């Protein structure tokens, strides 16, 4: 009888320890943003390996996937998309995406307004 009592206590200690452990093992349940291949697209952009049209396709696809899952896209995502649209002559989509970045992230206001003034000097 005393054997099983100690065994039970050991089990309880083990369970308690692992519960506390798992509690401080991870800080976050899930990422704040849906990243897709955004950073890879950015690197391809910097290296000149991916043109604007190809990037737009990739990013719009990622955006759709994010929306389908109710997830937000990361800081800078829409701004980068805006720049790409500017490069292919779609200034309407450029402005739309800069405004969207501003709305999603009010911290970006100064820089977004700076860019909007350049493309929309009204």
């Amino acid at each position, binding site marked *: 009888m005393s054997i099983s009592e*100690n065994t039970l206590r050991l089990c309880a200690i083990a369970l*308690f*320890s692992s519960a*506390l452990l798992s509690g*401080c093992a991870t800080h*976050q349940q899930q990422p704040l943003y849906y990243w897709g291949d955004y950073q890879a697209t950015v690197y391809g952009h*910097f290296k000149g390996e991916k043109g604007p049209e190809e990037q737009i396709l990739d990013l719009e696809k990622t955006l759709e996937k994010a929306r389908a899952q109710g997830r937000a896209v990361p800081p*800078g995502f829409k701004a980068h998309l805006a720049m790409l649209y500017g490069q292919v002559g779609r200034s309407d989509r450029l402005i739309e995406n800069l405004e969207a970045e501003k709305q999603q992230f009010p911290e970006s206001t100064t820089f977004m307004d700076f860019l909007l003034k350049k493309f929309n000097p009204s």
Partner: protein
Amino acid sequence: MKQMLSIKWTALLLGSLLLGGCATQTKNYDYSAFRESRPASILVLPPLNNTPDINATYSMLSQVTLPLAESGYYVLPVTLVDEAFKQNGMTTPADIHELPIKKLREIFGADAALYINVKQYGTSYAVISSETRVTAEGQLIDLRSGRTLWQGAATASSAEGNNNSGGGLIGLLVKAVVSQIVDTLNNRGHAIAGVTSTRLLAAGRPNGILYGPRSPMYLKDGSPTLQ
């Protein structure tokens, strides 16, 4: 009876050791400036490249947004920031790093700027094994006060956790040379740089940056969360 007692105490000891290991991190860094500043947005400047690999700057720059954003900061779009500098005749990171912070604050409106210096980037052949390593240092400066909020460094290597299993010496040498060539061609440095970037810039690490306002862990640095 004696045996059972010692098992119980061992379990208790083990349990408390394990708990102690993941309890609050002892921060040696003085975070008083950081805590006073509480930046919400970070401007990452194109990193200095002190390596022989021309890819280092943009490889690192393209991978800084993730750890910083997930730590709760707004990160200014790195491509547009780079483009803004280029259009103003600033093409080298060295020139960019010299810009007055007042100017940076005026144009970008960020609360803080991150100055990164990549010190190692690439694959080196070291007799028996080759290794791809990326090492970087970072400094976070408040653009409103000019104060240094944080500095740190991180490194990552393809050789981590490598158990060089047996096999003849010749075999190892050949493998090292081949893997060095393959690694450089595949730009394995880029994958390693991603690890370095995360180690350098993710909040919640010992002496790492603090969590930002968009993180559920904001103001809770050093405390474990019980989910």
